[in-house]
């Protein structure tokens, strides 16, 4: 199959439809292999500080290289997208529930129970895949094929490694999820809508303060169509660099039919909305949220948010949760006309301080494309609408770590929807393993994030201590000879994701989503794991010292970067 060498930006533009939609119509996309050498190159680039590939010129790489690096990334994750804990649960639904509606409801339930980074990534991924499945008449990759290709990274279990029949079931589950992607929504943050305060928060929220949550502003994600230009702006947002480096938690907002909101426990979104408002968008921001405003909001909101849940879990948690302020803007139901989007977009602009985000510009590529798609009957109602991803991150010096570590799995099942968005300080208060070299000897939490399966041969403390053996492979890259799911330490860490997200404005949002889960895992599994991650690319463990130095350098750099970004932010503000 002839491979066109295109830049990734072009590739993404193609996906997003600003030019001819090539990637979506490329035969065998995601199935066909790129060049192993180039994919490894990409991997290396994305794992290499300080730019982590953000300056990457995609010339010379093919569509398949790009799609492969995503696949590889997923396959290398320490935990599949659907975590091992939920492996059987997802499959059970498929096996035991016959009615599609009930199935969807059951999956929705399960999705909301996944650790947030995982549920977010899953949603993004499903959105992406369904977009490609939509073009299966051209690319031949229908949902079944896509499910086959992505099953290992999404829904697999080491205990079934030798049972092809189980793969089939898992792939069938994934196929079902892709086919019904539009029915699923992410767990909702617990917020009020149309809150002008939030707009102000948004402005402030873009500027990070440590320790505390950072705001990772993703561009709009309209049912898979992402404006590449928006993404580019995104990367100029203040604090973005830091977030990428340090982000753990994210929040993202999305469109969701109101009818579903009303039924969700603990969900206050849209209560004031008329029920014909079928789609709402919301975004979250945090960071520098003024505390008195927060207090005000807290009192305003009272029981509407779900403090009880957090109180039960952890008294600090309830406080933290409320700092997860979210603003929400609603959109007129069912309209895809950009005029109707204007109010929303303008608010979003304010909230996110992004000068470009938004689809109200009639001349924007996005708008044009959407019109085009609409006229072709291809425009899909956005199922995920993400303006902001919130990433509270551990303070670099680990000064705030008083709160005991709480494994997400321990709390997740009890948290109502929305509450699953974690309190910002939760991660900040975890052992600062990733960022504090001095924490090398910190003991990893004994149980971690619910990913542990007794059948999986992991270290009891969940740190992956076996040093990767290196071997020169034919791929031109040194890689462990025992790279399996059981050896997450040898898989690429968050940095790969992050860099991808950074370097490719239009790059699959799912990738950036993934980074969060990675970081989560990395922090959960302990510093040792992190150190191992650092050595993943070269296939060897770097000296702890060198890693430390590197990290220090990164830190300094990112701080500088943040300062300069703050300048930019001011500029944006003044433009507004």
């Amino acid at each position: 199959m002839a491979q066109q060498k295109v830049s990734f930006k072009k590739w993404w533009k193609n996906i997003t439809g600003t030019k001819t939609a090539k990637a979506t119509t490329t035969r065998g996309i995601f199935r066909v292999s790129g060049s192993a050498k180039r994919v490894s190159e990409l991997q290396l680039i994305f794992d290499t500080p300080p730019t982590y590939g953000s300056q990457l010129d995609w010339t010379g790489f093919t569509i398949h290289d790009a799609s492969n690096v995503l696949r590889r990334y997923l396959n290398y994750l320490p935990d599949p997208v659907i975590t091992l804990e939920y492996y059987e649960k997802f499959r059970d639904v498929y096996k035991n529930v016959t009615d599609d509606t009930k199935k969807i409801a059951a999956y929705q339930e399960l999705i909301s129970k996944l650790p947030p980074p995982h549920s977010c990534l899953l949603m993004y991924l499903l959105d992406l895949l369904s977009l490609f499945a939509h073009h299966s008449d051209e690319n031949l990759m229908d949902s079944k094929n896509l499910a086959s290709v992505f099953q290992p990274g999404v829904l697999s279990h080491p205990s079934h490694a030798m049972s092809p029949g189980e793969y089939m079931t898992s792939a069938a589950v994934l196929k079902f999820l892709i086919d019904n992607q539009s029915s699923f929504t992410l767990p909702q943050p617990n917020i009020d809508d149309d809150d002008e305060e939030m707009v102000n928060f948004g402005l402030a929220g873009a500027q990070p303060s440590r320790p505390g949550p950072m705001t990772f502003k993703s561009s709009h994600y309209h049912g898979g169509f992402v404006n590449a230009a928006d993404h580019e702006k995104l990367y100029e947002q203040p604090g973005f660099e830091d977030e990428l480096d340090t982000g753990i938690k994210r929040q993202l907002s999305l469109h969701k039919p109101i009818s579903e909101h009303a039924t969700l426990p603990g969900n206050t979104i849209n209560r004031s909305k008329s029920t014909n408002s079928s789609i709402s968008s919301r975004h979250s921001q945090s960071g520098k949220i003024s505390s008195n405003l927060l207090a005000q909001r807290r009192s305003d909101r009272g029981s509407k948010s779900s403090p009880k849940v957090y109180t039960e879990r952890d008294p600090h948690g309830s406080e933290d949760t409320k700092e997860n302020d979210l603003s929400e803007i609603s959109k007129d139901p069912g309209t895809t006309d950009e005029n109707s989007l204007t109010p929303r977009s303008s608010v979003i602009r304010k909230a996110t301080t992004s000068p470009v985000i938004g689809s109200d510009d009639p001349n924007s590529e996005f708008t044009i494309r959407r019109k085009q798609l609409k006229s072709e009957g291809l425009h899909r109602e956005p199922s995920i609408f993400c303006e902001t991803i919130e990433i509270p991150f551990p303070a670099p010096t680990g000064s705030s770590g008083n709160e005991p570590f709480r494994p997400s799995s321990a709390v997740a099942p009890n948290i109502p929807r929305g509450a699953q968005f974690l309190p910002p300080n939760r991660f900040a208060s975890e052992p600062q393993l990733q960022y504090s070299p001095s924490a090398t000897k910190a003991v990893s939490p004994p149980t971690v994030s619910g990913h542990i399966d007794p059948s999986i041969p992991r270290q009891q403390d969940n740190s992956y201590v076996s040093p990767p053996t290196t071997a020169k492979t034919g791929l031109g890259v040194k890689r462990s000879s025992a790279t399996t799911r059981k050896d997450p330490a040898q898989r690429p860490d968050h940095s790969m994701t992050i860099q991808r997200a950074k370097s490719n404005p239009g790059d699959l949002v799912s990738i950036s989503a993934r980074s969060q889960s990675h970081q989560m895992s990395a922090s959960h599994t302990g510093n040792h794991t992190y150190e191992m991650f650092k050595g993943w690319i070269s296939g060897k463990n770097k000296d702890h010292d060198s890693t430390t130095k590197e990290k220090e350098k990164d830190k300094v750099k990112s701080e500088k970067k943040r300062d300069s970004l703050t300048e930019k932010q001011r500029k944006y503000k003044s433009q507004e």
Partner: protein
Amino acid sequence: MASQRKVLLKVIILGESGVGKTSLMNQYVNKKFSNQYKATIGADFLTKEVPIDDRLVTMQIWDTAGQERFQSLGVAFYRGADCCVLVFDVNNAKSFETLESWRDEFLIQASPNNPENFPFVVIGNKIDMDESKRMVSQKRAMAWCQSKGNIPYFETSAKEAINVEQAFQTIAKNALQHEVNVKIDFHDPIKIDSDTPDNNGCAC
């Protein structure tokens, strides 16, 4: 003594995605070919009983997904393989060029005891396509096979069932030989026992 030990040969098919691994296996085992564009899920295997030199052996043919090779499949998957089939598409130069890395990775993952002598078979598939589309000449493929220790090379068409039977016959033969060798290597005391029935040839 009377009932000969049942021999199970584990054969692994590897190669770039879309070269026809599943088609080859299906053609060999089920005598069927489908034009459907269908990605393999992880891995799958079919078994077939094959008579080799008066002996009936069961071939367990593992078909693998062409993507991201070993990352998504456990090491256990490759352990105990008796033969590895490397498939490429003669109309796709890249699929040929990656054979080496497939081979190397297999050796790493499966870590056979005697990597130099581990039986590989190379198959150039899709020879039914127009000659003008051909990207890898027979000569080139054979040269590579020779350089890798005289790996047997077959040109096949799963679609038109050309040469498939022959290729798998060789695969079975080499796999059996490997299996026997391994037995000899590792179970010296049993060697006599397992050799004796070999000569009986009463598997049918």
